[in-house]
């Protein structure tokens, strides 16, 4: 019994260290966002916040970094992509679960086959295609593709198979409801928990995306938050540590808030094995 307790203490210590490791970089970031560049250069680590946040803000926004533009563009793209992905994936999953059609199995096989292929490896063709039809610098180029999200369809189908009772659908038919209305008013409410889980992960993935947005959006007014963040690496902010920390804090803060509000659902969603770009 005694030995077990000792081992348990060891486990708590290891977990505590890992927890600190998770938080420490963000803590340094937030504190340094309030400290002046001079203070940071004297001592890069401090646990106590300072009062220079406004100066940092002026330095930051006086240059290329525009947190508002980045935030708004990211919100538009992520919201649009999430709505498209969740709604149409559920609709596609419904087509796979509720109807008997000749191409059903081959279609599902295709979805399984392409599920793991990341869009990054087809970026050259995607960019050239968008360039030709004049859709670079158009946010829709990052929203519309979300309608075909094989991973989300797969997840929705897996959830729908056991939870959707087709008798309900049949009785709706007898009541004279159209197929599309049945989907919207009966199937969607049943799928709500799965849709919420997928919405969170699609939103976060879309919010965090760098590669595709960076290729497609070349005009400053279209930059998303991650592209704005990538500007911090350039020479313009080279020695402005206070401003860089503040910019990072601003880019991370919304995710922090969302994460700590929804962490229970996010962890449960991860446990379902549903995410992985």
């Amino acid at each position: 019994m005694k030995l077990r307790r000792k081992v348990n203490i060891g486990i708590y210590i290891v977990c505590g260290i890992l927890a600190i490791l998770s938080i420490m970089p963000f803590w340094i970031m937030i504190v340094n966002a309030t400290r002046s560049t001079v203070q940071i250069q004297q001592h890069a680590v401090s646990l106590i916040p300072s009062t220079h946040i406004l100066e940092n803000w002026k330095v930051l926004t006086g240059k290329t970094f525009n947190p508002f533009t980045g935030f708004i563009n990211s919100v538009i793209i992520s919201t649009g992509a999430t709505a498209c992905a969740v709604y149409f994936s559920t609709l596609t999953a419904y087509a796979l679960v509720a109807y008997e059609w000749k191409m059903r199995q081959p279609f599902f096989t295709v979805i399984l086959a392409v599920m793991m292929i990341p869009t990054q490896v087809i970026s050259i063709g995607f960019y050239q295609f968008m360039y030709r039809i004049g859709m670079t610098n158009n946010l829709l180029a990052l929203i519309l593709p979300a309608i075909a999200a094989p991973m989300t369809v797969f997840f929705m189908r897996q959830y729908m198979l056991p939870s959707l009772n087709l008798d309900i659908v049949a009785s709706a038919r007898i009541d004279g409801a159209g197929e599309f209305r049945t989907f919207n008013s009966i199937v969607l409410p049943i799928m709500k928990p799965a849709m919420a889980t997928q919405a969170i992960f699609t939103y976060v993935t879309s919010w965090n995306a760098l590669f595709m947005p960076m290729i497609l959006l070349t005009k400053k007014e279209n930059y998303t938050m991650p592209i704005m963040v990538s500007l911090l690496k350039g020479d313009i902010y080279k020695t402005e540590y206070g401003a860089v920390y503040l910019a990072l804090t601003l880019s991370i803060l919304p995710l922090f808030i969302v994460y700590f509000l929804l962490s229970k659902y996010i962890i449960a969603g991860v446990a379902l094995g549903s995410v992985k770009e």
Partner: protein
Amino acid sequence: MPLKKEGKPKIKGVSYAKYGYLFSLPFVIIFLVFMLYPTLFTAVIGFTDFKGVVATSFKFLEHPFDNFVSIFANKTFRTSLVNTVVIWTMNFIPQMGLALLLTAWFTNRSRRIRGQGAFKVLFYLPNIITAASVAILYGVIFAYPIGPINDILQSLHLIKEPFDFSTSPWAAKIVVAFIQFWQWYGYTTIILISGVLGINPELFEAAEIDGASPRQTFFQVTLPCMRTILIFTLITSLIGGLNMFDIPKLYIWNGGPANATMTTSVFIYAQAFSGTYLYNKAAAASMIMFVIIAILSAFTFFLMRDRSEARAIRAMKRMEKLKKGAAV
């Protein structure tokens, strides 16, 4: 093959099959336009002389595989391929090791580790944060000559002079691998724990009755039962690793010292989109990566098919639990 089951979605001889087609139509159209067409287009560009910022026309090369030959001969591409695998391996081995250890601790029924929920939330936190921000953050944390890490190491008297992490090729690689590890071990831990919870509890009871120690139980019951999930984690992590871009791109600019952090994605981006506009070479490199990833995902494809039914039932049960939890 006529696959007709009796009755199911048919009422009074009305066929609803057309709705199956209709409802999957948006997916199919978008898939064809935004995924299949770009894939074929990328493949085609790989066989052409297409380059230059304003070029829109191109013609096929006389020797169609020239781009592929020159990409394989390209030293930077080979370096980037090796880097990608090396950085992924340096991240994955400790990641899997730690995740297995945490899984063993958290699922050990006689230990009853408390605060698991809070630990999971904290371990998973880095995964949800924008990789671009994380990369820049680590860039300033490892800054030279004055940055938090140098500051800490000097105050602990571990080093006398500040260490420049950005000029040593191995330091750069290790830091990138560490960031990947730091972002992903929590994810892997949660996946593995949920895998253990999915194992039939009777197996553990039987092991207990047979007098197996927790260690024996873990190695002889838990691990063998987790084989599929472990392979799945390995392959999905490898596919993700082969696309590693944000961290190596933004932690150190331009591939790092001696191209130490140049991964294949960074290479492809540099070829096509930063100054050189060698779309044909970038497309050839992309197709090489595409083939590697397609082979890897073929493995997961067969794994998924077997597991999909069992997963469905588990997924539903868990969701219901969650719903109940939320209602209370």
